[in-house]
């Protein structure tokens, strides 16, 4: 069964450093997403991406965050200058179209020290 894959599975970074989290969505999907889950808290929507542009973003997705689809398969989340409170599990997800099921990857644990 096709799946969303994410790398790295774990990353530890120093505060202030830039981090790039990578994702390969399911191949025929058109909508891509990033969600995050701070330890012990709800899964929260960050951003959705369609047709090479952001279609919706939450208040969490401020100027330190950016997303990109650099080629035909990868979808990345960049955090420009990490803060301690960015420590979380970051989930990439994709769906075939709007209103379809959203499939999640296994997540990337980010620890900012």
């Amino acid at each position, binding site marked *: 069964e096709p799946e969303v894959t994410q790398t790295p599975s774990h990353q530890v970074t120093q505060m202030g450093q830039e981090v790039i989290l990578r994702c390969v969505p399911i191949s025929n999907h058109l909508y891509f*997403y990033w*969600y995050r889950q701070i330890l012990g808290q*709800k*899964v929260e929507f960050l951003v959705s991406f369609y047709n090479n542009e952001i279609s919706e973003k939450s208040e969490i997705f401020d100027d330190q965050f950016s997303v990109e689809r650099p080629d035909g398969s990868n979808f990345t989340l960049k955090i420009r200058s990490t803060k301690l409170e960015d420590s979380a599990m970051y989930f990439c997800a994709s769906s075939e179209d709007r*209103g379809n*099921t959203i499939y999640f*990857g296994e997540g990337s644990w980010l620890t900012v020290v």
Partner: protein
Amino acid sequence: AQSVTQPDIHITVSEGASLELRCNYSYGATPYLFWYVQSPGQGLQLLLKYFSGDTLVQGIKGFEAEFKRSQSSFNLRKPSVHWSDAAEYFCAVGHYVGNMLTFGGGTRLMVKP
């Protein structure tokens, strides 16, 4: 704004016993509803979904859920729980226009032998 409430933070059941996990949602239109399961250190796996039609939906691993519009609920059930069902369960409501999910806080299920 849409919201999802999972009233039970923790539930413990004996193996072989029946299970019902509660989910209540608030949404202005017909919702898209989902249940996801997260095993420790793992990603979010889709158990089942409701978009329209039959209000009783079947999912993987023997789970089912019933959409009750009058009660704004989408409770997850399983007739006989297995030890491998121990995990965290998340209910989510979909937003068609933005195609993002709003998650509940999760219910952690423990299974006693």
